């Protein structure tokens, strides 16, 4: 029997879903949808009577105080519970798509002694009578996503929801013989392998030496292992590059720039080296306190999020959490971060390329994904950023990061010969096939229909129980190595773990969500929430007991052999056999060509009308504060639990006025005072014109954020996330080389080693316009830099919140006329000028001085100058503290170069809005002024303002700017500044 139970709110006022549906529908379809109602449905299949279903509904599915329900069998008519609402629009997860609510319901039903064969959840909107086609179209626009849902309008009529079919073992040989490059390329495309003809030739030669053709499962294993996602083949290529500093050759770009910087720094540190495990495990590990190390990783999940924002972001976060869990002998996740780069929120629908999700819907989807996954995992989401730029319309970027903590001496692990291969966590299904290779292929307007299988929905509670299980097993030292099942699924996880030893795997032993997966599908499925452990046979029994206690499925599916061969079996028969050396070292190396020329800059022009009033900078200030990049992301931040685990100290919104923190701080261990500081930096607006300075500026910003929070500048670990457009052109690759060079230079200069990283290339969106001409939209070259800092004592962290009136405001660092890529430029206040340059010598000294002043207790508040420059920094400090301030632009330390001749209001605009890197605005009490000045002597600095209770002329606290000519240029009431800063509708 197949039953449907529909549950709805008794009170229309409680039906939130109907309100958001009505609002979204009204924006698209002119009909009146305001009366619509929603119901949550459950399809329950099994040998169950109507009375059984009543018991399930009343015992599990409804809230007796606020909800009511109806039951129908599939033979009953579909009656509307709402008078006048006759059109039913049902949205169901597609068969095979993870349905956490249904899984929970099924589990709960067993508590009542009833065990249905299958359960599926659905949601229904009841609307006024409307044409079915129109209703369906609307459903696809506002309710459903083609990648994961089905939509049914009218009566729901299904025979069965129990899926699965039988699969019997068969071997498919794939001949690569007789194919030229074009033929090989075609084969790669047809099978979604993302292998180049040269790589396929290497595969062909290898199998010729064995005297046979590869089997499908072997070819797939090679494709996963050699994917851009898994082995970063572009970044690790040889490159002949010609840049502004002349020609240079790299045998391995990443190794000789980013990795090399870390090696150099570790060499300088010698015995004081605090790196533990870098660029080898799933995350980078550094020393923390006497008995702990910390680790950090940031991943991108761009392609899946572009197609299904909610599922893409959630599984992105789920994946990076598992990276931390799968580091060393397992680390406990203690903080998450997320950064999104999307199109401008007000992009008109007509300007969107076909198949692209509008930026607002996309942003709210990815936020909801991170929220629902991160909050359920009980990991505070404490840091992040959102950047808006038209280049991200087709390829939004979704970065998710996690910090973990682990006991010392548990970072270095190796599986041992004879260890069992154990897969733990979620079951394997057909979901997420080809994620690793799909992420290496360009998105197009058809991607949504082509790549459904690679998009998934997360099941956070499975990952939470998996985490509880792994951490307990780690405590008891029951496994010798662990890794997560991410891109490439078991093929990558087991393949990497057994890269030296080899392994034998019984694929038929892998627990499945439903029957019918082929051996290849089992092997490469990227089904979520799974980890692979290497377990000594002697520990197996104990490990299995912990799994049972934590309600986690853990199954031994094979063993690490030590013979260097990866053998795949199905019911005892050999399904595939690969030489580990060929698999991991057999990929042909290639040398690419890169080229970068620095574009010429134009002289700086300022467009700010001087209306003759004493308030000419008021509108620019308010407009800057309201720009999407600058404005408060409170609408997003508050949806994340940033306080769970009880260790959060400095939170993303800080001070009485909920201003923006630069970095955020959590204690490493409950009850201990040493803290972890997280900060990010992103200078994507420079990406297209100056990739070197984009990367350098981003790194400096990330470090400045944590230093402004009190982090010790000699203990900062960095992460790189390269997101690029086309890297197949010489110029595209050249911009990537320039960014790598910047990473190397800045890391060494600041003695801040990179410890891990990730790249996502080919973020190019392709479509055809109405005339049928091919179009392309590429993201700007984007490096996200993440800084992981440490504070000795969380009682001494710094925040940007002004503490009181009567303090001095000092500006540290030199202001230049470097407005290219600035928010002022975006607002049209300026045009041209210089590209912001990073002067690492001065910057290193500035960071050291800030830290020295902080340690000496000389800073009441401190804020890093970033988007919008001094004027927004001053306003943000005032908003955070609820205290006004006055800035004297005439006193700002500056070197305006060729713009030195600017006077009056134009000069004021430059000084107030330039985004020159590594500058800090510091609140210093009168009594500490002398001591502070001696600490910062030698670094460009000046007292250029003060904090004040009220502006006597306005009668309220204000953010006041005094111009270079001595007169007032702006006195914006604090409340008005705060309102502008809070005006962005996001999340």
């Amino acid at each position: 029997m197949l039953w449907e139970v529909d549950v709805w709110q008794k009170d229309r006022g409680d039906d939130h879903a109907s309100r958001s549906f009505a609002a979204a529908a009204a924006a698209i379809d002119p009909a009146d949808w305001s009366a619509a109602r929603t119901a949550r449905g459950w399809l329950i299949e099994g040998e169950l009577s109507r009375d059984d279903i009543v018991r399930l509904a009343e015992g599990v599915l409804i809230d007796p105080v606020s909800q009511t329900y109806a039951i129908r069998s599939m033979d009953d008519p579909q009656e509307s519970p709402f008078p006048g609402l006759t059109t039913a629009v049902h949205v169901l997860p597609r068969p095979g798509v993870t349905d956490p609510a249904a899984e929970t319901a099924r589990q709960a039903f067993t508590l009542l002694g009833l065990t249905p064969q299958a359960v599926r959840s659905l949601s229904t909107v009841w609307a006024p009578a409307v044409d079915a086609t129109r209703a369906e179209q609307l459903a696809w626009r506002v309710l459903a996503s083609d990648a994961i849902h089905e939509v049914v309008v009218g009566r729901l009529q299904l025979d069965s929801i129990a899926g699965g079919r039988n699969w019997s073992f068969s071997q498919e040989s794939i001949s690569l013989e007789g194919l030229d490059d074009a033929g090989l390329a075609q084969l790669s495309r047809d099978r979604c392998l993302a292998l180049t003809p040269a790589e396929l030739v290497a595969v062909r030669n290898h199998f010729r030496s064995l005297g046979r053709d590869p089997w499908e499962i072997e070819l797939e294993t090679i494709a996963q292992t050699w994917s851009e996602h898994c082995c970063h083949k572009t970044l690790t290529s040889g490159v002949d590059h010609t840049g502004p500093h002349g020609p240079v050759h790299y045998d391995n770009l990443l190794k000789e720039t980013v990795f090399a910087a870390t090696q150099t720094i570790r060499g300088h540190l010698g015995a004081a080296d605090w790196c533990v495990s870098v660029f080898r495990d799933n995350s980078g590990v550094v020393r923390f306190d006497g008995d702990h190390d910390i680790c950090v990783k940031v991943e991108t999940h761009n392609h899946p999020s572009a197609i299904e924002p909610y599922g893409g972001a959630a599984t992105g976060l789920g994946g990076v959490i598992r990276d931390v869990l799968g580091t060393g002998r397992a680390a406990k996740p203690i903080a998450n971060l997320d950064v999104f780069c999307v199109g401008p929120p007000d992009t008109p629908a007509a300007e969107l390329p076909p198949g692209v999700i509008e930026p607002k819907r996309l942003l709210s989807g990815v936020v909801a994904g991170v929220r629902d996954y991160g909050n359920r995992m009980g990991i505070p989401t404490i840091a992040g950023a959102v950047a808006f730029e038209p280049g991200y319309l087709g390829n939004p970027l979704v970065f998710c990061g996690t910090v973990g903590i682990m006991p010392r001496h548990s970072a270095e692990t190796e599986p041992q010969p004879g260890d069992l291969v154990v897969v733990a966590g979620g079951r394997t299904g057909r979901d997420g096939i080809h994620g690793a290779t799909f992420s290496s292929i360009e998105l197009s307007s058809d991607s949504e229909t082509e790549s459904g299988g690679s998009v998934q929905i997360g099941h956070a509670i499975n990952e939470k129980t998996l985490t509880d299980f792994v951490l307990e097993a780690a405590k008891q030292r029951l496994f010798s190595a662990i890794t997560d099942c991410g891109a490439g699924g078991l093929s990558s996880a087991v393949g990497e773990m057994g890269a030296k030893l080899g392994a034998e795997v019984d694929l038929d032993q892998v627990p499945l969500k439903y029957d019918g997966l082929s051996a290849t599908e089992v092997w490469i499925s990227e089904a979520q929430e799974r980890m692979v452990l290497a377990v000594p046979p002697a520990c197996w029994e104990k490990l299995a007991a912990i799994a049972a206690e934590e309600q986690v499925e853990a199954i031994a599916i094979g063993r690490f052999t030590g013979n260097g061969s990866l053998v795949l079996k199905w019911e005892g028969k050999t399904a595939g056999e690969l030489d580990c050396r060929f698999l991991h070292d057999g990929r042909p190396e290639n040398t690419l060509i890169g080229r970068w020329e620095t574009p010429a800059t134009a002289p700086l022009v300022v467009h700010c009308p001087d209306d003759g009033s004493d308030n000419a900078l008021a509108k620019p200030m308010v407009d800057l504060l309201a720009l999407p990049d600058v404005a408060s992301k409170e609408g997003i931040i508050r949806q994340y639990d940033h306080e769970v685990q009880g260790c959060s100290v400095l939170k993303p919104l800080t001070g009485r006025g909920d201003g923006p923190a630069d970095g955020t701080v959590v204690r490493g261990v409950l009850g201990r005072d040493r803290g972890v500081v997280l900060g990010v930096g992103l200078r994507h607006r420079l990406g297209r014109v100056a990739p070197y300075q984009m990367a350098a500026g981003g790194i400096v910003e990330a470090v400045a954020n944590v230093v402004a929070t009190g982090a010790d500048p000699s203990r900062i670990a960095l992460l790189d996330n390269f997101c690029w457009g086309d890297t197949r052109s010489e110029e595209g690759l050249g911009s990537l080389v320039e960014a790598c060079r910047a990473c190397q230079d800045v890391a060494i200069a600041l003695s801040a080693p990179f410890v891990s990283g990730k790249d996502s290339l080919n973020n190019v969106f392709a479509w055809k316009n109405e005339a049928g001409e091919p179009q392309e939209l590429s993201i700007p070259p984007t490096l996200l830099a993440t800084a992981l800092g440490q504070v000795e004592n969380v009682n001494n962290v710094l925040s940007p919140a002004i503490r009181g009136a009567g303090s001095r405001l000092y500006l540290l660092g030199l202001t230049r006329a470097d407005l290219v890529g600035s928010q002022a430029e975006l607002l049209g206040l300026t045009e041209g000028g210089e590209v912001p340059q990073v002067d690492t010598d001065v910057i290193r000294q500035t960071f050291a001085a800030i830290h020295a002043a902080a340690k000496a207790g000389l800073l009441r508040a401190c804020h890093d100058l970033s988007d919008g420059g001094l004027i927004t920094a001053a306003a943000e400090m005032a908003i955070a503290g609820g205290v006004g301030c006055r800035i004297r632009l005439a006193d700002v330390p500056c070197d305006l170069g060729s713009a030195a001749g600017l006077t009056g209001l134009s000069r004021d605009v430059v000084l107030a809005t330039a985004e020159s890197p590594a500058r800090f605005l510091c609140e210093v009490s009168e009594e500490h002024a002398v001591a502070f000045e001696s600490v910062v002597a030698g670094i460009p600095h000046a007292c250029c303002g003060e904090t004040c209770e009220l502006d006597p002329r306005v009668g309220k606290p204000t953010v006041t700017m005094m111009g270079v000519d001595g007169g007032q240029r702006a006195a914006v009431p604090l409340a008005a500044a705060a309102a502008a800063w809070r005006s962005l509708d996001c999340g």
Partner: protein
Amino acid sequence: MLSPRALILRAPGTNCDHETAFAFERAGAISRRVHIQALAERPALLDEYQIFCIPGGFSYGDDIASGRILALQLRTFLSDALERFRDRGGLILGICNGFQVLLQTSLLLHEPTIGPQATLAANTSGRFIDRWVHLETRPSRCVFLDGLGKLELPVAHAEGRFRSRSPETLTALEASGQLVLRYGLNPDGSSGNPNGSEADVAGVCDETGRVLGLMPHPERFLDALQHPALAGSTEARGRNGVGLALFTNAVRAVS
């Protein structure tokens, strides 16, 4: 004298168990985190404890409704044991998800013939919200809130809107002094109610005063520097947060 013992219940998806256990320890108790499966198999474990706490989280994912499955398990396996626990002077505390669970059991605002007298529905915003709120305690026999007066704590939930079965129920609960914790006003005089709760209810106790459910998280305010206005200032150094008092009250009451 022996320290009181606190049992911190956990289930798949519980995620505030460590810091809640830590809070009770800071307050002088000995805390143990116990899995629902272990307790369901051996309800007599409760005899070793004086305090039973269901901490925050998303038990079983809260996919059907908050706290639904864990409450079903408590009703199925532990109803009698928990009532006995309360009747012999034990204290029961439900924080956030724990409050959502308690309201679906016989331990809090429950009429034997009718069932639950109130529920925690979706926030008016329809969204999860993490923010600090101003709270006021009402004079009551609730042992946890003794002497707390006005205080600030963070909330972090998607379903925290207190909603009673009927206006009469609400009046009766008010009259019996069970609506013990209320959202207060913000400093600017605006309502500080973050979720649309009836009568600004943030927490309720049972008739004995020994069972308390509340949405705010006292375990997240053990140190002054956890307050967003105080982190980064010198005022916070070395001071306790107000949330700790709730746990010390409980420990004192059973010592």
